[in-house]
C-alpha cells in the first residue's frame, strides 16, 4: 500500500510528462517555417502556374523561415464563389488576384484590401511601374490597393490564318467586311465563330464592346451603372449586330452550352475559323495550340457614337488582404512577381506584364508584344460590364446577350433586362 502511494504520484507525473511530450511533439510544426503566405488566384494556364512555383521556390530559398502556399482555383469558380469563400475562411489568403475597378473597390469597402502605396513607393518597387499602371487601382483618388500584374485585352477576334489564307480572305476592318468573311467561311463548311458562353461572360464581354462602340462610351457607362435604360433604341441597334450573327448562323449552335475552355479547344483544333476572347488565349495556346497558325484583329468598326478604335480591356493585379498578419512578408513575394525576372516569366508565358520593361530581353511572341502595344496605345480603353460596372446590371445584360446570341428577340431580351435593372434601382 505504501509502495503504491509512493508510486502513484510518481506514475501520474510520468504519465503527464509523457503526454505533454507527445502533445508538444505532435503540435510542433512539420517544418521550421514560422510564416506562411497564402496567394490565391484563378487558373491562367500551366505555364503561369509553373512560373508561380518557380517564384515560390526562389522566395522560400531567400527566406528559409517562410513558406508560400499558392491557391489556384478554376477561373469561373474563383470569380464567383471561390475568392469570397476564401476571404471569409479562417485561412484567408494574404494576397489575391483581382481586376482593377469596382471589384477591387468592393474588397476595400469590405475591409479586405490594404493600402499598399507606402510599399509601392519604397525601394523594392522603385521604377518598376509607370504611373499609368496604377489607373483604377485607387479608391476615389487616394491610396493604391493593388500591385499591377497584367494588362488584359478582354475581347479581340482571334482567327485561323490557314483557313483565311486557303479561302483568300483578308482581315476585315468594318462590320460589313466581317460579315462577308463569316459568309465565305460558312459557305466553305467551317464554323465561322466558336464561343463558349455557358458562363455568359465571353459573348457578354464582346457585347459590352459592341455596345460601347455603338452608343458611345459615356452612355455605355451610364447604362452599365444602371443610370440609363438598357432597352434604349441605341442599345437595341447595338445588340442587333449580335442578332445578325445568330440569325445568319455564323456562330456555333452550342454557344450557350459550351464552356469557354472547350471553345478554345475547338478553335485550337481548327474546327472554327474565329473565336472572340481575351489576350490570355496566348497562354493557353502555348500548351494546347501548338502548330496552329493564328493571329488576331480588334472588333471591326461599327456605325456608332463611340470610338471605333477602342479596346476592351482591364488591368489586373494582386491585392493584399488588410487582415493579413504578414503584409510586409507578402509584399516581399509580390516584389518578386513584379521584378525583372518575374516580368520575363510572365512575358514568356504569353501574358502582357504591366511593369515598365515587359519584354526586355525576352523572346516574347510577337502577338503578345503586339497586344501589349494595342492596350497601351489604344485611344480609348473600355471596361467590360462584369468587371468594370455594377455586377447585377451586368448579369441582367449578359442574360439578355445570351438570349440574343441564342436566337432570341433583341427588344424582348433588353426589355426583360431593363425590368430586372429597374428592380435593382
Amino acid at each position: 500500500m505504501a509502495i503504491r502511494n509512493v508510486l502513484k504520484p510518481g506514475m501520474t507525473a510520468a504519465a503527464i510528462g509523457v503526454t505533454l511530450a507527445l502533445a508538444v511533439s505532435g503540435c510542433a510544426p512539420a517544418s521550421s517555417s514560422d510564416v506562411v503566405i497564402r496567394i490565391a488566384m484563378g487558373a491562367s494556364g500551366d505555364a503561369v502556374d509553373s512560373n508561380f512555383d518557380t517564384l515560390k521556390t526562389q522566395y522560400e530559398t531567400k527566406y528559409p523561415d517562410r513558406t508560400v502556399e499558392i491557391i489556384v482555383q478554376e477561373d469561373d469558380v474563383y470569380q464567383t464563389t471561390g475568392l469570397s469563400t476564401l476571404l471569409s475562411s479562417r485561412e484567408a489568403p494574404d494576397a489575391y488576384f483581382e481586376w482593377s475597378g469596382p471589384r477591387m473597390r468592393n474588397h476595400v469597402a469590405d475591409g479586405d484590401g490594404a493600402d499598399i502605396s507606402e510599399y509601392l513607393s519604397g525601394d523594392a518597387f522603385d521604377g518598376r511601374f509607370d504611373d499609368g499602371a496604377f489607373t483604377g487601382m485607387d479608391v476615389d483618388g487616394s491610396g493604391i490597393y493593388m500591385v499591377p500584374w497584367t494588362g488584359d485585352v478582354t475581347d479581340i477576334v482571334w482567327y485561323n490564318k490557314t483557313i483565311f489564307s486557303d479561302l483568300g480572305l483578308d482581315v476585315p476592318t468594318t462590320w460589313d467586311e466581317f460579315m462577308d468573311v463569316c459568309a465565305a467561311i460558312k459557305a466553305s463548311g467551317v464554323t465561322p465563330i466558336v464561343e463558349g458562353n455557358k458562363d455568359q461572360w465571353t459573348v457578354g464581354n464582346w457585347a459590352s464592346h459592341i455596345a460601347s462602340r455603338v452608343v458611345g462610351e459615356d452612355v455605355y457607362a451610364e447604362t452599365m451603372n444602371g443610370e440609363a435604360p438598357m432597352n434604349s433604341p441605341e442599345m437595341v441597334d447595338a445588340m442587333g449586330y449580335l442578332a445578325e450573327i445568330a440569325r445568319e448562323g455564323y456562330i456555333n449552335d452550342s454557344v450557350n452550352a459550351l464552356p469557354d475552355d472547350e471553345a478554345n479547344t475547338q478553335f485550337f483544333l481548327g474546327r472554327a475559323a474565329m473565336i472572340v476572347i481575351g489576350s490570355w488565349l496566348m497562354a493557353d495556346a502555348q500548351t494546347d495550340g501548338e502548330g496552329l497558325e493564328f493571329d488576331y484583329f480588334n472588333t471591326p468598326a461599327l456605325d456608332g457614337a463611340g470610338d471605333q478604335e477602342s479596346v476592351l480591356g482591364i488591368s489586373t493585379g494582386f491585392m493584399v488582404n488588410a487582415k493579413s498578419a504578414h503584409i510586409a512578408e507578402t509584399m516581399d513575394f509580390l516584389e518578386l512577381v513584379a521584378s525583372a525576372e518575374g516580368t520575363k516569366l510572365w512575358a514568356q508565358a504569353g501574358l502582357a506584364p504591366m511593369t515598365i520593361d515587359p519584354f526586355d530581353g525576352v523572346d516574347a511572341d510577337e502577338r503578345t508584344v503586339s497586344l501589349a502595344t494595342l492596350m497601351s496605345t489604344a485611344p480609348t480603353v473600355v471596361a467590360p460590364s462584369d468587371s468594370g460596372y455594377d455586377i447585377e446590371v451586368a448579369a441582367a445584360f449578359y442574360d439578355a446577350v445570351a438570349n440574343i446570341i441564342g436566337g432570341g428577340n433583341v427588344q424582348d431580351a433588353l426589355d426583360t433586362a431593363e425590368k430586372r435593372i429597374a428592380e435593382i434601382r
Partner: protein
Amino acid sequence: MKSDRVWTPYLLVAPAVLVFAFVVLLPALLNTGLSFVDWSGTNQMVFVGIDNFTRAFRDDIYLTAYRNTFGYIALTLILEVAVGLVMAGVVTMQGRRTAFYRIAFFVPVMLPMVVIAVLWSFVYSDDIGLINTALRSTGFDALALVWLGNPATALIAISVVSGWIYAGFYMAIFFAALQRIPTHIVEAATLDGASQWRIFFSVKVPMIRPMIEIAVLLCVTGAFQSFDLFYVMTNGGPDHATEIVTTYLVEVVFRFNNLGYGAALATIMTIVVLALGLIFARIRSKVGGVDVEY
C-alpha cells in the same frame, strides 16, 4: 427517488435536442434574422424590414426557379420513383440471379455527383457527344440537338441524368420492401392465374404503398436540395431554363454578395418545403396512410 426520475426523460432527449438546436434551429433562426437586412457579408448591416421578401415575389428569375424546380420534381417522380419501382419489379421477377442487376443499377448512386455531371456533359455534347454521334451515324441528323444549350431540352436532359442516378436508389428501397411480402400471397395470386405484371401492380405495389409514399416525399424534398448537377452541367442556363432555387441562391449570395436577399430567398424556400411536407402528411392521413400489415 421519484423526483430524480422526473429529469431522466429530459436528460435522455437533451443530446438530440441540443444537436438539432445547434445544427438546424439556430442556423434557421439566424438566417431568418438576416432576411431583414441589407448585408454583403462584411459591410455594415442595414435593417430593411420586409423589402427582401417583397423583392423576392417580384423577382422573375426566382419565380422561374420555382417553376423549374416543380418541373424537375414532376420529371423525377417518373424517371426516379416510377422507373425505380418498375426496375424493382423486373428484378424481383427474375428469381434468384438478381445480384448483378441490383449492383449495376445501384452503381450510379455511389459515384460522385460532379463526376457524373462532367461525364454526362460529354454525353450530351453537341459535336462529340454520344447521343448526337449515334443519331448522326444512323441518319437521324435532324434529331441531333444542343441538349444542354436549348431551353426546351435542357431541364429534361438534366432530369434524365438525375433519373439515371436515383432510379437505382429507389429500386433498392422498393426491392427490400418487395422481398418482405410473404410468398404465400404471391403464390395464391399465381394459382388464381394472375400474370407476373398483374401480381406486381395489383398485389405487390399496394402492399408496399407506404414505402412508395416515403420515396415520393424523398424525391420532392430532394429536388429542393439539388445543386451540383445543375451547377456543373448548365449553371442555370440557357436563359435560366435550368435555374433552380439553389443555383439562384448561390448567384445572389456569392456573385452579387447580397447575403440579406439570399437569406430571404432561403427562408422562403424553407417555408415552401415545410408546407409541402405538411400538405403531404395531411393528404396521406386523409386518404388512409395506414401501413399494410402482413
